[in-house]
């Protein structure tokens, strides 16, 4: 008995079915192509009354407070600009002469009444026209397009400004703050003494280093994962100088594994200098400051490994940290090290508070160098900073009161 498919009883029938199918698909294809062409032909000519009404009140203005090179064009929407209306988009044309050749510089979708020309050259004069466009697409091709364009407007020049007026409030704030800081620095220079409140985290630095000395274990100093262009890293380097000085005095090894080459170079210099300063250059070892990796989680993994293997008695986490903060701090906590952390990353502060013994919250880290050095000029700058803070608190209180009485002062404090 021959094996036969239950669908196609034999080869002859299968062949006939196949030929029939080919003929059908060819005919269907022909029919489909023909019908598509008929539809396309019927669309080629725009139907009557599809030209949109042009937009009105077109204006062009130089973008204020910029470096030049930008002109903003605005218009009132065409009455035909609505869902199902005749406007599909607006196109903006530009020429350097009123009756010259206008070239398209960009387009805005329907419903948008503005466009910024960022290709303008500073100092050149330009004329602009805005056209409301209606078109018909078929299979991705434009089969017809109609437009109505406005009269040219201009001439308009883009210029660069010498002061960003949007940032005037910041400028005033900076002047007040810097003025206050400089005043107190000068006062400190003149011999004035200042009271600086105790900061627990900084007070504990010496005890933490002392603990490592007593236990005969090392200290680890982690300066965050940002480069030297971050002020937090700079502040961290300043604290490192003081911590390594105390460590050198106590003859306790301090290890500084870093994640940036520039930080490594700076930290090497600082640690070496600290050892020399306390008369212990011989105790300094080249491998105390070492580079690990730029990679965030690679760095976290390496630090975790070092913590687990070396079991340092004291860990400092000072600088800019991101998601790796808790990975490091929790590992440090698990080995029983005393941990002092400091960062100005608000999102990481709760993690450090939960996992570390002491945390320098934001500004406290920036104050640490002045606090540790006790240098009058630096302490004066802290006092100036506090006065700046008092002024800001006063401004906030006045703002709250005025806003409560319906006076809108939010613009005075917004930064663009």
């Amino acid at each position, binding site marked *: 008995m021959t094996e036969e498919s239950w669908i196609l009883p034999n080869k002859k029938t299968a062949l006939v079915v196949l030929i029939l199918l080919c003929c059908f698909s060819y005919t269907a294809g022909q029919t489909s192509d023909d019908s598509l062409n008929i539809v396309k032909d019927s669309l080629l000519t725009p139907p009557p009354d599809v030209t949109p009404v042009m937009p009105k009140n077109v204006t062009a203005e130089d973008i204020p407070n910029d470096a030049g090179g930008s002109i903003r064009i605005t218009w009132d929407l065409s009455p035909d600009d609505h869902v199902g209306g005749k406007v599909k988009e607006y196109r903006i044309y530009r020429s350097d002469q009123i009756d010259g050749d206008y070239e398209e510089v960009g387009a805005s979708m329907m419903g948008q009444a503005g466009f910024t020309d960022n290709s303008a050259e500073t100092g050149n004069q330009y004329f602009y026209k805005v056209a409301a466009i209606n078109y018909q697409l078929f299979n991705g091709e434009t089969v017809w397009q109609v437009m109505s364009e406005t009269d040219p407007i201009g001439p308009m020049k883009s210029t660069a400004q010498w002061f960003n007026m949007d940032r005037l409030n910041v400028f005033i704030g900076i002047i007040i703050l810097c003025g206050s800081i400089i005043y107190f620095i000068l006062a400190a220079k003149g011999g004035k003494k200042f009271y600086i409140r105790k900061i627990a985290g900084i007070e504990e630095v010496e005890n933490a280093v002392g603990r490592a000395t007593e236990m005969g274990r090392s200290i680890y100093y982690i300066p965050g994962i940002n480069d030297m262009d971050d*002020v937090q890293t700079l502040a961290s380097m300043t604290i490192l100088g003081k911590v390594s000085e105390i460590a050198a005095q106590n003859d306790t090894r301090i290890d500084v594994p870093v994640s940036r080459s520039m930080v490594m170079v700076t930290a090497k210099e600082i640690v070496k200098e600290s050892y020399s300063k306390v008369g212990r250059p011989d105790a300094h070892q080249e491998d105390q400051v070492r580079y690990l990796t*730029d990679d965030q989680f690679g760095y976290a993994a390496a630090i975790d490994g070092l913590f687990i293997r070396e079991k340092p008695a004291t860990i400092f986490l000072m600088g800019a940290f991101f998601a790796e903060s808790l990975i490091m701090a929790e590992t440090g*906590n698990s080995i029983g090290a005393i941990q002092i952390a400091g960062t*100005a990353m608000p999102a990481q502060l709760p993690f450090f508070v939960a*996992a570390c013994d002491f945390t320098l919250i934001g*500004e406290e880290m920036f104050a640490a160098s002045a606090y540790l050095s006790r240098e009058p000029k630096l302490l004066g700058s802290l006092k100036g900073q506090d006065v700046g803070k008092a002024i800001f608190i006063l401004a906030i209180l006045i703002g709250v009161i005025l806003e409560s009485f319906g006076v809108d002062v939010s613009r005075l404090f917004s930064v663009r």
Partner: protein
Amino acid sequence: MRREIPMAITFIVGFVFLFAYFIPHPPFNEFENTFNDSFSIIAAFAIWLGALNLIKISLVKIFKKKSDVLHSSFIVISFLVIVFFGFYDGIRGLYADPVFSFRDQGTGFNWLYEYVYSSLSATMFALLAFFVASASYRAFRARNLEATILLIAGILVMLGRVPIGDLMTGWLPDAFQISNWANWIMNIPNTAGQRAIMIGIALGLVSTSLRIILGLERAYLGGD
């Protein structure tokens, strides 16, 4: 001169950046870009310093048979393997038709990146979940009033952020729905606290930057 030149550079660059924030006019906007580019170029060269430092310290540990010989060996081998595939695929790609990059799909470098590096990075990131749990456990222990408030706020926010919270209180009026409480905690007390910290940070940043620009803070140059 070892201190004076870096301090002069810091002073000039610091003030140019400060002016560039308020003055959009050329040349200040261009200076800012130039200094940023210069930093990137210096940092790119400095990467070699870091890489050489890492290899040097690891090789010393291996040859002097100090502690961490195994880890140091892994570092050196990994470094050599990834550098080999980077150069091998890069050179191979240059002479291929069509030309391809060492980072393209199908290269050894890409394979190492996709199946070794990315997986290891993801593993480290995933560990964060466990660390959050252990840290929360300690932080949320109701030892005193503050910790108790933190515990209650934490529970409300966590429940308010998951569907079960709405399921529990969805039938109650709006004022008693847990997700609304969570939103209130996040939007009012939490935002107020965060803003207070951020204002302090901003003031600290200005103060520290001014000290550095004026040369009062010199410890980052080594010593005082």
